[in-house]
């Protein structure tokens, strides 16, 4: 039985935006998976279905000048932060029109123009780098805030410890959003930690932590908004642990033998999109028809993006040799 989330105080437009943003990610991922199975997309995929409330809730609480860092599983973060569906899709196809010109790919989606670094596919790599974003904002006394997405598995990396402690000591304007989807690849968190929550780990840095229902987009948005305010007041970073679940396998071809179908079913009951949809209709913020319209829009947007990507040119092979350096050094001539 799906329970609606609490939408008290939410306006109709706001509610439909949240719904649309989440649905866009879900449909993008589903569509991308089909395309991958058809052999249209090279490489591999780490998909985001199930976790949409985290990306959308978090990014909806940010301003356009706030930057995010992301992970090997960045599709949801990218779309939520405003990377266009066209440029994300084209990047997955490895096309010249992709957001990284075909040099990044699925694991490195990003776009500086919307405040997203190329995603970092080294687990916890973004935690290292985000300190510098916060430090830059602090030194320049802007009111920007940096937001760092990572998984519960990343909290076992040394980078987590060094990065969070440094940010705490420096009172950097950073919001850490840990998406605890229980598994790091095949490994359940409880086999890698004697404490149940990642939130337990930051008291040692003097950093506050908040646990939030990661299947409730409104709750995530509220938690991030509060942490952002705190950061902007100069009070330093906050960790938000969003309890969530990835509906798909870790990457393409994962048969998910390490978890039960019952567990999966229980989490599907908490589907963030359905919970918001139900809340919208129950609270009279919108009708079934409104939701269907959103779906139709999103589908149209996606088909346009697929078409765009398919018809985009491949990158010029000669471009493979540019962009390693900002000030060119002759490749092959210099050492």
């Amino acid at each position, binding site marked *: 039985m799906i329970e609606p989330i609490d939408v008290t105080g939410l306006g109709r437009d706001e509610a439909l935006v949240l719904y649309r943003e989440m649905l866009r990610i879900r449909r993008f991922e589903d569509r991308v998976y089909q395309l991958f199975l058809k052999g249209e997309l090279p*490489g591999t995929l780490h998909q985001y279905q199930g976790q949409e409330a985290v990306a959308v809730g978090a990014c909806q609480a940010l301003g356009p000048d706030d930057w995010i860092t992301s992970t090997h599983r960045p599709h949801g973060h990218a779309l939520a932060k405003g990377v266009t569906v066209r440029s994300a899709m084209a990047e997955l196809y*490895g096309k010249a029109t992709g957001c990284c010109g075909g040099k990044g*790919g699925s694991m490195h989606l990003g776009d500086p123009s919307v405040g997203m670094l190329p995603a970092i596919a*080294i687990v916890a790599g973004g935690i290292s780098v985000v300190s510098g974003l916060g430090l830059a904002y602090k030194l320049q006394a802007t009111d920007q805030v940096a937001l760092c997405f990572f998984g519960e598995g990343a909290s076992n990396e040394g980078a987590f410890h060094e990065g969070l402690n440094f940010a705490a000591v420096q009172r950097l304007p950073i919001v850490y959003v840990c998406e605890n989807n229980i598994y*790091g*690849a095949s490994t359940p968190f409880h086999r890698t930690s004697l404490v149940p929550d990642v939130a337990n780990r930051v008291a040692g840095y003097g950093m506050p932590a908040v646990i939030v229902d990661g299947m409730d987009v409104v709750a995530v948005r509220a938690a991030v908004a509060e942490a952002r305010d705190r950061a902007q007041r100069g009070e330093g970073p906050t960790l938000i642990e969003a309890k969530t679940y990835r509906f798909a396998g870790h990457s393409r071809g994962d048969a*998910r033998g*390490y978890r039960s179908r019952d567990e999966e079913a229980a989490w599907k009951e908490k589907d963030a999109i359905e919970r918001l949809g139900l809340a919208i209709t129950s609270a009279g913020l919108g009708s079934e028809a409104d939701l269907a319209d959103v779906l139709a829009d999103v589908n149209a947007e996606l088909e346009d993006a697929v078409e765009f990507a398919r018809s985009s040119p491949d990158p010029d*092979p000669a471009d493979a*040799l540019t962009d390693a350096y900002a000030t060119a050094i002759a490749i092959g001539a210099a050492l």
Partner: protein
Amino acid sequence: MSTTAQEPATVGTERRLTITEAIREGIAEEMERDPRVFLIGEDVGIPGGFGGAFGVYLGLPERFGHERIIDTPISEKAIAGAAVGAALMGLRPIPDMQYSDFLFECMDELVNQAAKMRYMSGGKLSVPLVMRAPVGTANRGAQHGQCPESYFIHVPGIKVVAPSDAYVAKGIIKAAIRDDDPVIVFEHKLLYGSKGREQAGGMDLTAHVPEEDYVWPIGRAMVKRVGTDATVVATHLTLYRALAAAEELAAEGVSVEVIDPISLQPFDLDTVFASVERTGRLLIAHEDTLTGGWGAELAARVAQERLYSLEAPIRRVAAHDVPLPVAPVLEQAVVPTQQRIADELRLLLA
């Protein structure tokens, strides 16, 4: 070290294995033989899981139990550090690094600890560990396709091997496990013989692997193709591309010798020197980037020790000096293709 060495002729029934199967078998045999051997890494033994990032360990937990197939948190420093410490205490750990790109997370443990502990102790201790680290680009972008072998030939105290077929892979993983020094074993993802990687250039590769116990000694190269006009030294996927380029040139009447060095540190220079003495021409080919790659060291050795055998400048063909792009058309513009190798051979012979 012997100057040439060939895969032995098949005795009895042929038994063709993929590299994945060969390494699994080699590890299993050594775990059977020596209770000190154990595996440690991320996702190596989780029930219902992957058996390591490339399925190499599937079935091993059932045989050897979770005491000896140790799943860890995502903590590369902890993995490498635990391996170093256990090796110092006389065990024979096999730490697993999913992708060799993650070795950069435990460089201190490898370069400052594993490599130096024996020396610092005045020779009283040793560090017999075997780090497994898959390499090779496969449409996954800048952080999941590097070939970092060459960093490690620069670390005195560490040995580096790079098997490219199932026969050698089994023999050398067993040799590495029995070796008293830290050995890093670099395998190429596209040579594992797993299905579904054809799109990225993966090869459906098997070799005859005899049932009897054997090792391939660390430090011994293999002449994969005999030739008289030029010598190519290449590893991994590039080795197969070089062999194909050699065939291409054979059709043009040129006879190319192709050597798989297998071991990068120590390196079987004798085999290369002997070949260059005969052919007078050397092309070195690797998927690791050019500048500072192991090919540079080999070229420098030949330029010092066999300059007078050379009839033409030593050439190298390698990945261009850029990070790895993801788009297939860009990727193939970076790594050494059969085409580029053949072109380089033609220049070498011009």
